[in-house]
């Protein structure tokens, strides 16, 4: 069993703001991240699949094809977008990095071929903050 990771990136705006709370409470809990006019990040996305290398190709899966699937199913929806406003799979959710990574997992699961085992995704919001998700 070998792990294969493809790294992609996207740039997006977001804010952390719970519409059920007052502006004061949002600022108390989310600080500067609650700025009503948004702020943004350069996100780095690490997608790791696992499997045994194919006898004929030596690949678990063609890394170029993995890149195309990640770009078509996820990056296209997120890059240069406003995560709160523009992204269908984040509607009605808080746009935290934690919720975003779960949403990305669900999108990838819908589009990866059945034989591919998704192992882990890692999402870096800044060089100093990142989350990981293993699908449960």
């Amino acid at each position, binding site marked *: 069993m070998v792990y294969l990771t493809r790294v992609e*990136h996207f*740039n*997006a*705006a*977001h804010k952390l703001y719970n519409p059920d709370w007052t502006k004061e409470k949002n600022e108390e809990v989310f*600080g*500067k*991240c609650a*700025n009503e*006019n*948004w*702020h*943004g*990040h*350069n996100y780095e996305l690490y997608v790791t699949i696992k499997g045994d290398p194919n006898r004929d190709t030596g690949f678990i899966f063609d890394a170029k094809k993995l890149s195309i699937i990640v770009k078509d199913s996820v990056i296209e929806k997120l*890059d*240069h*977008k*406003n995560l709160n*406003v*523009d992204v269908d799979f984040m509607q009605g959710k808080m746009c935290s990095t934690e919720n975003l990574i779960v949403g990305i997992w669900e999108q990838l699961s819908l589009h990866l071929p059945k034989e591919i085992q998704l192992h882990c995704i890692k999402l870096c919001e*800044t*060089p100093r903050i990142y989350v990981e998700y293993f699908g449960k």
Partner: protein
Amino acid sequence: MSKVSVFRREHFNAAHRLFNPGWSDEKNFEIFGKCANPHYHGHNYELEIKVTGETDPETGYVMDLKKLSDLVKENVLNEFDHKNLNLDTKYFTNINPTAENIVIVIYEILRKKIDVSFDLGIRLYETDRNFVEYPVK
């Protein structure tokens, strides 16, 4: 005395949009592509401030880097961090917040705060792969 350059690295996260209000939506998307998205997008900006000057014989410093950091935080980061560059700052009401224009604005802000005996240079990373420098000599 020899001149030495000292550097301080800072960072801020901000939203922006590239858009020329004198152009149609079609022309804006043609020129600025995804960067023209009306709902904004954003970046982790990395900022490098370079100060060049004589080393002070009493301290051994060109400039106290903690003081430089405080200057940058008070005058630049407080205005830009977790902000929308188009909407929340006073600098980009008439110019686009491109990396080129942002680096010039930051230079002008800091130039007023740092003694003229020091040379000042700014490098601004918009992404790991896109960065700009000002001034050019």
